[in-house]
């Protein structure tokens, strides 16, 4: 277990608004520690996707402080963003697969972007696709895959480069319960290897299958406990383990 002071993400009074509209997120403060498994819950429209966008550096906040991997992400020079993004695996809610690439090439994309040689790409990508049950669909384009298959390709792409942090937005929304559980086990495996996992989901059953997980709940753009009493993880997490998830 990592030391409490070695936080991987720190949000402090973060707010987000688009244009001159009202704040989508307001007064968001939390800290994520390395090697933990976090769920982000909340009703539709609560701001989960917007919060994740801030996490994977797709959006800059309107106010507040964000520290990522020990660095101020607000003032991070643009040329350093790719290096940080390579440390974050993202499963987008709408998958965002590259339409002209095959399932294999989509999964290989993070490795190619990182400059991994072709000979070191083929085997891990094939194994990953086998693992998510798409070994026989390697050459299929996204348009020919079902929603569930596309989601599995998106997950394989997010985890193939063994990121320091995995951010997944409703990653099991389009798969059957067996596959959802299997994907959850994949996330847990990664988590055990040290990857911090943040999963946004409505699925209570999914959350209860990871008892060691920590839960953040968003309500209308705010973390549900503004006093910080339910801030996850607690400011001083117990040395023996994580806090138990509260009733949802």
């Amino acid at each position, binding site marked *: 277990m990592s030391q409490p002071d070695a936080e991987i993400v720190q949000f402090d009074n973060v707010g987000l608004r688009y244009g001159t509209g009202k704040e989508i997120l307001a007064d968001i403060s939390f800290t994520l520690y390395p090697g933990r498994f976090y769920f982000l819950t909340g009703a539709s429209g609560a701001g989960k996707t917007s919060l994740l966008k801030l996490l*994977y550096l797709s959006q800059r906040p309107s106010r507040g402080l964000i520290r990522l991997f020990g660095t101020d992400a607000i003032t991070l020079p643009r040329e350093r963003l790719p290096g940080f993004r390579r440390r974050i695996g993202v499963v987008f809610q709408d998958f965002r697969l590259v339409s002209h690439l095959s399932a294999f090439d989509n999964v290989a994309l993070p490795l190619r972007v990182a400059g991994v040689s072709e000979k070191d790409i083929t085997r891990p990508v094939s194994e990953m696709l086998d693992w998510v049950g798409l070994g026989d669909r390697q050459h299929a384009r996204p348009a020919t895959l079902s929603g569930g298959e596309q989601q599995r390709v998106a997950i394989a*792409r997010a985890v193939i480069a063994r990121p320091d942090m995995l951010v997944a937005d409703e990653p099991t929304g389009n798969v059957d319960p067996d596959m959802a559980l299997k994907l959850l086990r994949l996330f847990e495996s990664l988590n055990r290897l040290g990857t911090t996992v943040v999963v946004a989901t409505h699925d209570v059953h999914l959350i209860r299958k990871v008892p060691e997980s920590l839960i953040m709940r968003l309500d209308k753009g705010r973390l549900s406990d503004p006093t910080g009493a339910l801030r996850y993880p607690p400011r001083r997490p117990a040395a023996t383990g994580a806090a138990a998830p509260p009733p949802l």
Partner: protein
Amino acid sequence: MGFLSALLQRWRGSAATGDPRLLPEAQLTGPMPWVIAIMIAMTVVAAASGLALRNAASTASADLEGGVTVQIVTAAPAERLRQSAGVLKALRAAPEVAEARQVAQEELNNLVEPWLGTRPGDDVEALPIPALIDVRLKGAATPSRLAALRAIIVPEAPSARVDAQAGWLAPVFAAIGAMQWMAGGLIALLAFATISAVLLASRNALGNHRETIEIVHMLGGTDRQIARVFQRSMAFDAAAGGLAGLLLGIVTIVALSRQFAGLGSGMVAGAVLRWPDWIVIAAIPLAGVGLAVLTARLTVLAALRRML
């Protein structure tokens, strides 16, 4: 461009090996190769014209550089003959004169024939046509040398006129110079038009692939990686267009040179392209590719900088 297209597709395929296949490679179906082909063809013709004009001017200038014409304008034939002989003798004795030759009466008659005619009854020899002495100096006919020549000639023929031959063609050289500037201006305009076309094509491609670019950014792709894909695509289009444009331009040059060769004019005969000129012409498509790639790179990088 069927075969060319197939060849380039194979080339693209091999070039793409080992690169992040971030964006779909453009096919040779867009207008870009054709736009560049037209631009390069026009640039090749403009450049060839400018170079040929320069060569014509250079050849004529070299021929006339040391040429001086002395006119003995005395009306009395016997006196004209006497003065001519005296001047010729004095000139041949002058150290800076390489050659001095009296233009034969028959040549003079031929020169004035188009204006005075040769019909029965015409008596060209009755006209007081000046005696002409064609002088070649050892160097260029500078004003100081002309003055020195006059000093030699005037004692023998006080009314003689001494003119540098290059001076007669000064307006022609000025016109050729202006045409060369025009050719240069045309090339600059074509380069500007090429840059504009590439800029528009790059922006259009960026718009078409915006979603993919965002995904690649989110996966940690750098602006340079993305720009390289656009550069490579533009390089292929520009290379195909440049090659086609070069061939089209050369065909046009050859056709034009045959037309001008038929004129048989002395000055036009000097308007030929030499092998260094052909190297310049062959370099035009390469310059076009470089310009297109650089424009695409700068356009894409500038646009990407506006994205997070």
